[in-house]
């Protein structure tokens, strides 16, 4: 027996032909170590002191956003801004981020969902800051559109300042309308009725030899059940009364049901709009952008996409009014900028918010065409008109904020939204009538609102 070698190793060599050499282990560890070091070095700028700004935007809209942000950084060189882009469900993401303790400093919030954040103490009440700067406060007050500003007031506190009007209206394809010799209204005051709208849509829907639709009369680029609700609203039924922190919704109102049914019938009964299945491969946005739809319902957030679509000549018009409605209205769609309550950079956040929602930043926004601004001075500015020179019916945009009706503001919106999705679904697909809201949806929603 070999004297230096321990007996184990000889026996090992007989049992196992390929032992796990230590060299292999070290080599493997070396590779991992190298990649570890490389990654860490590259990621060393983890905890920088930048101001984080959370927002959601389509790719084209994001470009315009960045231009405004760059403008801010130009004027405030000491403040560095890092953007956090939202995925599909911004509210859920915000809640998860803030619940995890890492709330972004400046948050883009929506009119429908911000109350949930305010109620949980996530957002900073901006009234004290305003109180400390009375000149700016009065300037802001006089320049604001009340409908937009008041939307972000909840239980006595002001939780965000509006940065845009994102209410809905109709985009239409000028060429297709001209070819059919049709002209839609150009101002909110000259509204058209459901019947007239349907007539136009029917005349603008074209089919080919095999009865497949080549051109739709109407597509919707918003959330279908919200749009259906808008048609209900334009039939004279507000979604809830009161609008701020309501205890019940008006979903079982006959006028509301009639409006929703009309919207659903567009796809199922009159076939002037694509059904959900038709929309799967080409989104409604693409349909309008490629000239395969005469009208598209949406808000200004679609403007960048449409204006960059090659060969699309479009204009805007107002939403139709139902038989029970009183004039054409849009929703007071608005997003605002809020500051996180536990942000360590409140002063910088305030500078950012003040810029984007104040007269200075809003003028910049108007010029870039990113949004319909929330301040009167910017809405009526020459810069805004110039940025929208291709739009003939500018009054639809400039008069929009004043012609908006409130949507409900409630912290329980997430649950209400889930219920709406479930109950509107069969109606929009055409397998159920909207009168079913009286029995299912209304009761469930009221229960949610009462149980807060």
């Amino acid at each position, binding site marked *: 027996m070999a004297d230096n070698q*321990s*007996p*184990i190793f000889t*026996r*090992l060599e007989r*049992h*196992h032909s*390929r*032992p*796990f*050499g*230590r060299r292999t*282990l070290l080599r493997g*560890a070396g590779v*991992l170590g190298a*990649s*570890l070091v*490389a*990654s*860490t070095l*590259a*990621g060393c*700028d*983890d905890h920088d002191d930048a101001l984080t700004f959370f927002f959601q935007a*389509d*790719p084209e809209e994001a470009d315009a956003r960045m231009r405004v942000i760059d403008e801010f950084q130009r004027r405030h060189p000491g403040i560095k801004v*890092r953007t*956090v*882009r939202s*995925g*599909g469900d911004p509210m859920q993401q915000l809640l*998860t*981020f803030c*619940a*995890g*303790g*890492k709330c*972004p400093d400046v948050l883009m919030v929506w009119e429908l969902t911000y109350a949930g954040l305010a109620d949980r103490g996530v957002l900073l009440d901006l009234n004290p800051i305003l109180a400390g700067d009375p000149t700016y406060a009065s300037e802001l007050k006089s320049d604001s559109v009340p409908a937009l500003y008041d939307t972000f007031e909840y239980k006595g506190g002001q939780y965000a300042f509006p940065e845009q009007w994102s209410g809905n209206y109709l985009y239409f394809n000028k060429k297709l309308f001209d070819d059919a010799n049709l002209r839609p209204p150009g101002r909110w005051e000259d509204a058209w009725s459901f019947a007239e709208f349907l007539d136009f849509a029917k005349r603008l829907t074209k089919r080919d030899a095999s009865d497949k639709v080549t051109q739709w009369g109407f597509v919707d680029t918003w959330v279908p059940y919200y749009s259906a609700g808008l048609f209900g609203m334009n039939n004279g039924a507000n979604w809830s009364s009161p609008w701020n922190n309501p205890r019940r919704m008006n979903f079982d109102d006959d006028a509301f049901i009639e409006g929703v049914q009309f919207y659903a019938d567009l796809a199922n009964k009159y076939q002037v709009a694509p059904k959900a299945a038709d929309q799967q*491969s*080409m*989104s409604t946005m*693409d349909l309008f952008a490629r000239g395969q739809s005469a009208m598209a319902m949406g808000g200004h957030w679609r403007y960048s996409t449409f204006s960059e679509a090659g060969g699309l000549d479009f204009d805007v018009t107002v939403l139709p009014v139902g038989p029970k409605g009183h004039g054409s209205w849009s929703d007071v769609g608005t997003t605002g900028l809020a500051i996180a309550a536990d942000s360590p950079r409140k002063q910088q956040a305030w500078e950012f918010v003040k810029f984007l929602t104040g007269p200075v930043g809003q003028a910049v926004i108007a010029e870039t065409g990113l949004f319909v601004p929330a301040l009167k001075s910017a809405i009526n500015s020459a810069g805004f008109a110039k940025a929208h020179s291709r739009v003939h019916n500018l009054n639809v945009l400039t008069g929009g904020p004043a012609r908006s009706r409130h949507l409900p503001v409630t912290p329980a919106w997430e649950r209400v939204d889930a219920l709406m999705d479930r109950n509107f679904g069969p109606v929009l697909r055409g397998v159920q009538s909207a009168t079913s809201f009286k029995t299912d949806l209304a009761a469930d929603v009221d229960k949610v609102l009462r149980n807060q």
Partner: protein
Amino acid sequence: MSSLTERVIKFNVLRAIALYTALTVMAWCALFPILWAVSGSLKKERDVTAPVLLPPHPQWSNYGEVFALMPFWRMFLNTVFYAGCVTTGQVFFCSLAGYAFARLPFKGRDVLFLAYLGTLMVPLTVTVIPQFILMRTFGWTDTPWSMIVPGLFGSAFGTYLMRQFFRTLPNELEEAAILDGCSPWQVYWRVLLPHTKPAVMVLAVLTWVNVWNDFLWPLLMIQRDNISPLTLGLVHLQGQYVSRWPVLMAASMLILLPLVIIYAVAQRAFIRGIALSGFGGR
């Protein structure tokens, strides 16, 4: 040749044909989504419907566009980093603990191990919310730590795997080493560890794949793109570019590729890992 032999041969041939046909059909079922994705990634957007597997003018530019639309390399490095850390940690600490449970007698050993086994039964859904809160308490939300530390020191499953394996090693190895005067650490490090290659490979591969493919946890923890892993990046990409199939398919294939390579190389360990990950308690 008698007619009986002829019939037998014909039957065998038919049987072979039937068998290979069945196998090919099965292989097609297993592969067609991936093949379709590859072919989709090479087409132009408007040709996406074309029912050809290999498009006449492959648009490799789609792959290039992936890098323009998402910080792919950054996310790739992140994922490698997380997977590497966790795998190394798991292998090391689980084999340590597995050895201890298998070979080192100490008070309460079996009871403790039973508790370990118990935790294997618990579904992920029960622990995910408290783990989220733990990360918040430590301040690790939106940091690489949240992706590494929970798995770094091993898991109950890994320990179980290693213990089972250590028990299969022959006792004489240890006995001889102890006779030679080795301490427990030396027995572990010099003697037994070199022979745990199969189990280590299995654990390493399983852990790597699990971390690479993890989705729910990054979804909850990670906000910033520059520490985001690949799976999260893909879902964000899909959210923004919903119907741009060629780019989405290209991104999917790029994320798939490293795992396919690992699978090709470490196939046996892979399969054994799957088989072992099931046989609990036997």
